[in-house]
């Protein structure tokens, strides 16, 4: 029985990537290479104010002094940053004034990905910003959001239309000096999403961005900034896909969240970048810095992620719990199969009193997948009565995969309470047998058990995403999981 399971698991593991097509669209790509001139070019192309260019150049000069980090457990050959093109945009004469002007090829691409951008077909209650290679190509439902006072636009537009807001918050959570890839992003970020929820506003719909890498030899360096002003609420979703290409592509994004007093931000990600083929050829390097700042009292930031794609995933969506009674959450499912590697987790920095954080991380490794949970819980000296509970579970499928857990716990306040638990196991033979004796096929049984393993996380996702995530998980493990 075990052998057949293993074989079936192999099948699933080797199953193809569904979003691997390439859109045939004329693209403006600048030649590979990085220099101050390239940065000036990007800034000029985007018609940015002077201060943005200065910010980029400052970040670039700092980046030049840094070395790429070596501490994680992921392995990859050195990246030649001069071989990457830092700007690629679908060719167009003028920016689209409305969705009608968006290139039909592009709309068809998103359609094919299952993301309808045309408003009449759009998912009810979800506003979408579509980012294609380096630029935002379409943002839906802008008028209805504007009525509520919500700003939802590309970061390039924000630089034009809301410079004061952008200037106040850009880089305030993830400074350009933060780490190697954050510095690189600050220098060359091309587009991304800006969200501002005014005081007392509950954003009337889910906001979402779909990222698509299409062009060859390009990197994607988007930047997302969400500011929830006092007593506001927003739920934000992010999805990612890329074509199958033989070379590795770099995705080095930065996401900054700011939650003021009594504000709440819920940030969900379904990441399905191209993972490379079964021999580990190609795939996205997903090196992302995500951080939320609970600045005000009683604010709350919740990260939920389902990570099934990318050759290498390397990210730690974190919360700085500055305000008293603020809350941070991290819910994660990560699947690695084939030759995928993931080093992911979170940091919960408790600064304020009565701050609480919850970490639930579920890792599934199959094939030769390598996975690590890496996390930090820090209770600062004045974090009176702070609480953390962490649960990390790993499920191993097959005997060539690996799962690691590296939690760091630093406590300087005696009234703080930290609890951390981690387990590693495989799918129990008795569980499998029980399901099969009740008439389930082995494949269904495994799928059932894995879904049960991840249920806690899926419950945190908005409905549409939960369904998508569940499907994605099934596809990721199909055949692999008998």
């Amino acid at each position, binding site marked *: 029985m075990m052998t057949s399971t293993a074989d079936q698991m192999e099948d699933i593991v080797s199953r193809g990537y569904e979003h691997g097509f390439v859109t045939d669209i004329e693209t403006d790509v600048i030649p590979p290479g990085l220099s101050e001139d390239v940065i000036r070019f990007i800034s000029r192309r985007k018609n940015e104010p002077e201060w943005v260019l200065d910010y980029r150049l400052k970040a670039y000069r700092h980046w030049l002094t840094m070395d790429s980090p070596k*501490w994680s457990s992921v392995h990859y050959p050195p990246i030649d940053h001069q071989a990457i093109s830092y700007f690629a945009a679908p060719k167009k004469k003028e920016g689209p004034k409305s969705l009608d002007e968006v290139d039909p090829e592009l709309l068809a691409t998103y359609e094919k990905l299952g993301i309808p951008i045309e408003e009449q077909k759009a998912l009810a209650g979800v506003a979408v910003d579509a980012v294609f290679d380096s630029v935002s190509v379409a943002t839906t439902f802008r008028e209805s959001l504007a009525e509520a006072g919500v700003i939802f636009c590309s970061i390039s537009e924000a630089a034009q239309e809301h410079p004061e807001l952008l200037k106040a918050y850009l880089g305030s959570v993830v400074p350009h000096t933060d780490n190697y890839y954050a510095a690189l992003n600050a220098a060359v970020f091309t587009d991304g999403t800006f969200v501002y929820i005014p005081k007392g506003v509950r954003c009337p719909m889910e906001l979402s961005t779909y990222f698509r890498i299409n062009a060859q030899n390009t990197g994607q360096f988007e930047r997302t900034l969400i500011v929830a002003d006092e007593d506001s609420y927003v739920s934000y979703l992010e999805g990612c896909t890329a074509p199958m290409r033989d070379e590795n592509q770099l995705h080095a994004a930065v996401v900054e969240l700011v939650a003021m007093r009594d504000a709440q931000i819920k940030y969900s990600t379904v990441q399905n970048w191209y993972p490379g083929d079964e021999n580990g050829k190609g795939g996205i390097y997903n090196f992302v810095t995500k951080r939320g700042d609970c600045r005000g009292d009683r604010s709350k930031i919740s990260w939920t992620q389902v990570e099934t794609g990318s050759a290498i995933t390397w990210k730690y969506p974190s919360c700085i719990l500055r305000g008293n009674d603020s809350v941070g959450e991290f819910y994660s499912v990560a699947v690695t199969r084939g030759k995928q590697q993931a080093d992911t987790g979170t940091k919960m920095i408790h600064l304020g009193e009565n701050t609480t954080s919850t970490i639930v991380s579920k890792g599934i490794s199959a094939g030769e997948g390598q996975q690590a949970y890496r996390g930090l819980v820090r*209770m600062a*000296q004045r974090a009176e009565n702070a609480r953390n509970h962490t649960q990390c579970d*790993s499920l*191993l*499928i*097959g*005997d*060539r*995969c*690996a*799962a*690691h*857990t*590296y*939690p*760091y*716990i*630093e*406590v*300087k*306040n*005696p*009234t*703080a*309470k*930290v*609890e*951390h*638990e*981690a*387990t*590693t*196991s*495989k799918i129990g033979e008795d569980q499998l047998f029980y399901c099969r004796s009740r008439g389930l096929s082995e494949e269904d049984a495994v799928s059932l058990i894995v879904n049960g393993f991840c249920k806690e996380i899926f419950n945190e996702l908005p409905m549409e995403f939960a369904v998508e995530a569940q499907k994605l998980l099934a596809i990721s493990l199909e055949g692999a999981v008998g």
Partner: protein
Amino acid sequence: MSVVEAAGTDLHRIVASGKWPAAAGKVPIEWLGAIRERGAALASNLPIPDRKLEAWRYTPIGFLTKALYQPVLEGPFDAVQVSDVDELFLDGTDNIRLVFVNGYLATALCSNIVHADGVELRSLGGSMGEPSDELRDKLDQVADKRHVFAALNSALMSDGALIHVSANVTEKRPIELLHISLGLEQPPMCHPRHLIVLESGASAEVIERYCAIGDGAYFNNALIEVSLGAGSRLRHVRSQEESAKAQHLSDLHVRLGTESRYALTSVALGSAWSRTDIRVKFAGEGAHAELDGLILARDRQLNDVHLSVHHDVPNCTSRETFKGILDGKGKLVFDGYIHVAQDAQKTDAVLANDNLMLSRSAEVDTKPQLEIYADDVKCSHGTTVGELDQDMLFYLRSRGIPLARARQMLCQGFAEEVFGRIVGTPLYDRIRRLLAARLYETE
């Protein structure tokens, strides 16, 4: 400045002259030459620990540059008499007791040294007779990975016990290795070195203690190797009761053969700065290790335990339970690492680390880790940090016990779960007393 220099030891000069530390009246121990040279070479090449090295991230070693340590190149210290140290002896035991003063065997202080059949007891310094080839061949073979201090120990090891228990022999009397340190004007740096070899089916108990006369400053840098043959059993009790100004570093390496059993109870109460590395390696199937530790950090103490357990073969089990108590400005570091190799199917490992924080200025940094390359395993770890439980305190107080006493009882109870493993022994009583005194003092 290298660690070697910082430690006040002109290593290169020693290497050049060939004048190694040696017990008095003896020629330098020839057969150790190769090991010393290897150690010296390694010590010169290994990096000086700093906080950029993951294994030393939370463990500052700034003291090394503040005090100039004096290597103890000669022994023994005959001036120390039984009457000076008998308060450190455990009453009412028939322990085979080897006493080391500042790293050298002090024959006059030893007791119950009789040579039973199948039990070979030697000292590295040679004063207990020439060690057999079995012992010589095993020395320095168990310790695989080591940091610069361990390498330094290999280069400069002064004296220590060499214990060999033959196949199917049981030594019923515990073998006690009592280290007594005396601070001198220039703090001495001692390098005790022990080797414990149990052949297949053998069984023994070793008690390893680190104590001090007076409250002087010194640096103990010990290395212990344990090799367990198939089906052998070792009970290993360690108690670190160093002086409040001492630096204590010990490096314990254990290698478990097929179906062997190793039980460790480790208590660390003393010293200003203490670092213990415990490295347990499963080399044969069906073996089991039970590792328990109690760590106290109070005043300005830094107490660090790095535990790494390597499940390299299938069907082994391990239980790790380490508890920390923090008080005053104490800082406690716990790093517990479990590694399961690809072939080590059916491994079952459970690590628990619970920490009790009694003070507002204490700090605990704990890092339990799992690194797993096999799929059919059951591994888990759990960590908690918190203060005394309010419900428990109220329960005790509602029974008439005053708050201060209730707190002590709960701390004792917390600690008891570890050192309760040696209940009924004179050492148990002693640790209980020491712990009570230390927890009272800070009230």
